[in-house]
């Protein structure tokens, strides 16, 4: 019985064709010694039965994978009478690479020009007749999916059994051709099962399978060692020559419409444009921030706030009605609702902001943003890839810093870690929100955007500084592959959003609650002191540090206490302010204690100063060094302080 083999690139339609030919006459087994699936089937043509073997899909017949080795071994040693090479007509040049290799092996090839239906729709025209002449191979157009041309393919295949073929000999250029001749000489009179010229080429291609086979021969082994010693690496040249050969052979035979742009290409042309990419990114972010305010604050924010107020009022009156301890009432209404409640109010805003960010990420836009930022980032010595850790940092700096693990290079990684806290995390959002509500209610989106942008700018400046001073070293270069756009999966977007809210609530109930409780106790002591006053323990601590911040415009003790609370967790800043100013409305209280300018300098300070304890701990863990953790804590504090002072002092000149 004659054996026919089926080979082709993955996705060329090989399986579809195999099924179309064999129908249910097939069985699956394994190739001996490997885990690769072996599919075999039968078909009858003109009352004669033939075996059809489906070889694993492969782009090349090197030794890069088990699949490739199985496929080529069968072609060379399984003695198939005909090898049907399925090629995707819509991507013919790429597919011909495999064909060329089959021809070099001396296989009796019949080409199935598959997906011809799709090629026609795409207006790709292939001069089948002349291509067949140039390649010296029969070609049959097929559409396996529509079962077109399958009979013709079988007819031509059967007709070609026993056709006399000699291996294709491509000229690889003078040097390589000479080497090939020399190796063929060495291989003479030695009984390897493979064709000599093919083996010679494989040896020069550094094919590990063939090299280990011939290394048993000392003469050849010596020759190969010499090649390596003389730095004669021909692998790429050989592959290049094959592509050149394909180019020559297909010249004038393939007509295809110039660059058919996919939807992704079309969108990318605009979004990743060299000039417009960055402004578009900025615009999208401004819109996101503005929408966040519109939906999260104006629309949803009120409900949560009223709800919390309602609960607070209810519990307070309940406590009063049962004559509860005065301290307890104070703790519940000022500490818990004034402090933790002040943070909870921001849940809707956070939900909305991260909802939009999740959509940007899931659609594939964030990857484009990274692509656009890449040129800029390279200039400051950062990698485009670090942008991932920066985007993650916008959620929380802890995973942001952890995600720098994807950077292989130590220098890139250290810089990415050290600048990550300037990516304003979700916990800092409530701070900006209260100050915006108090001072810039009409420009929320713009102010928020400016803060985030300032964070990125500072990150870039520091990155440049670090790469010029602390971490010099070689840069790694790479190319990026962008994912195709897709519709966001609402399922995952909503799940993520829920997790976000849950995480936020959990923190409010634990860390923030703890910090607020401690500060509440400190503001009640020593016994008998006016609560939340300057004379309380907390007030005295705050007053000690406060003068330091006078040049930055926020020299009141409440501001400095809350900054220190913020080192425990950033949400605690708002929690602390809320408690210290309660029962007054926080926005009102801020307007009384801050000026517009000092509100700005305070926000700058919050953006830049020492990251939260969890982040510092992460730096220590990831760098495995106390020194870097300390460095992180100190340099950011100084930077934040200097910037806040600069903002306030320079601003004062104008206002």
């Amino acid at each position: 019985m004659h054996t026919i083999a089926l080979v082709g690139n993955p996705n060329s339609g090989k399986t579809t064709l195999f099924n179309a030919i064999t129908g249910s006459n097939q069985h699956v087994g394994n190739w001996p010694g490997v885990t690769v699936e072996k599919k075999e089937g039968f078909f009858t043509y003109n009352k004669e039965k033939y075996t059809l073997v489906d070889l694993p899909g492969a782009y090349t017949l090197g030794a890069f994978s088990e699949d490739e080795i199985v496929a080529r071994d069968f072609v060379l040693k399984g003695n198939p009478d005909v090898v049907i090479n399925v090629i995707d007509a819509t991507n013919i040049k790429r597919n011909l690479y495999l064909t060329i290799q089959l021809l070099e092996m001396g296989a009796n090839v019949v080409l199935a020009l598959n997906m011809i239906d799709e090629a026609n729709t795409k207006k790709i025209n292939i001069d089948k007749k002349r291509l067949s002449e140039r390649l010296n191979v029969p070609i049959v157009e097929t559409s396996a999916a529509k079962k077109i041309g399958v009979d013709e393919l079988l007819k031509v295949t059967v007709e070609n059994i026993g056709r006399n073929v000699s291996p294709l000999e491509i000229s690889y250029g003078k040097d390589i051709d000479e080497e090939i001749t020399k190796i063929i000489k060495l291989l003479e009179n030695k009984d390897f099962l493979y064709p000599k010229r093919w083996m010679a080429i494989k040896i020069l291609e550094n094919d590990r399978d063939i090299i280990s086979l011939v290394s048993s021969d000392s003469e050849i082994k010596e020759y190969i060692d010499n090649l390596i010693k003389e730095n004669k690496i021909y692998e790429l040249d050989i592959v290049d020559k094959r592509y050149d050969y394909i180019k020559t052979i297909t010249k004038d035979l393939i007509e295809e419409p110039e660059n058919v742009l996919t939807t992704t290409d079309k969108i990318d042309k605009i979004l990743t444009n060299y000039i417009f990419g960055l402004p578009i990114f900025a615009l999208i972010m401004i819109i996101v921030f503005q929408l966040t305010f519109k939906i999260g604050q104006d629309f949803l924010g009120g409900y949560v706030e009223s709800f919390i107020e309602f609960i607070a009022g209810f519990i307070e009156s309940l406590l009063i009605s049962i004559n509860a301890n005065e301290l307890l009432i104070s703790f519940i209404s000022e500490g818990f609702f004034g402090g933790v409640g002040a943070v909870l109010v921001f849940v809707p805003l956070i939900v909305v902001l991260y909802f939009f960010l999740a959509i940007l990420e899931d659609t594939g836009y964030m990857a484009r943003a990274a692509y656009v930022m890449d040129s800029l980032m390279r200039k400051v010595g950062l990698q485009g890839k670090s942008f991932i850790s920066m985007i993650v940092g916008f959620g929380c700096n802890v995973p942001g810093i952890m995600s720098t693990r994807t950077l292989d290079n130590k220098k890139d990684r250290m810089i990415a870690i050290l600048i990550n806290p300037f990516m304003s995390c979700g916990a800092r959002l409530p701070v900006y929100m209260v100050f915006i509500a108090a001072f810039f209610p009409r420009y929320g989106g713009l102010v928020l955007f400016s803060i985030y942008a300032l964070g990125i700018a500072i990150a870039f400046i520091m990155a440049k500084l670090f790469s010029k001073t602390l971490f010099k070293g070689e840069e790694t270069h790479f190319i990026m592959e962008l994912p195709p756009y897709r519709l966001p999966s609402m399922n995952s977007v909503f799940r993520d959003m829920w997790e976000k809210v849950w995480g936020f609530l959990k923190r409010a109930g634990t860390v923030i609650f703890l910090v607020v409780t401690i500060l509440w106790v400190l503001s009640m002591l020593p016994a008998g002191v006016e609560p939340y006053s300057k004379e309380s323990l907390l007030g005295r601590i705050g007053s000690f540090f406060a003068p330091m911040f006078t040049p930055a415009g926020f020299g009141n003790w409440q501001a400095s206490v809350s900054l220190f609370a913020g080192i425990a967790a950033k949400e605690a800043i708002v929690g602390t302010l809320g408690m210290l100013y309660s029962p007054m409305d926080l926005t009102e209280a801020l307007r009384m204690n801050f000026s517009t300018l000092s509100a700005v300098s305070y926000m700058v300070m919050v953006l830049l100063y020492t990251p939260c304890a969890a982040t510092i701990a992460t730096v220590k863990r990831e760098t495995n060094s106390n020194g870097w953790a300390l460095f992180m804590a100190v340099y950011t504090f100084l930077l934040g302080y200097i910037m806040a002072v600069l903002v306030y002092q320079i601003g004062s000149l104008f206002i």
Partner: protein
Amino acid sequence: MLKECLKLISEGSVKSTKDIANKLNISEMEANQFIEQLKQMDYLKKDGSEFSCGGKCFGCNLSNCPTNSFMTFSLSEKGKFYLKKL
């Protein structure tokens, strides 16, 4: 062309197959093909492992985790070695 692709990437003057296609004056499809070839031959390697927050960190916002992200490829040791020998 493969050599040229490899060189361009190592110089850092290209960041996508589109750029390579422009610089070498070839079609994007060809550029893609060359890059695929280089990957397959281990001259280029995929960078880093995928990062996943996996809910391990407190306050981590999964929606900010790269869910539909880009991949990057840089020269493997083999690729670097090859260019050095050139």
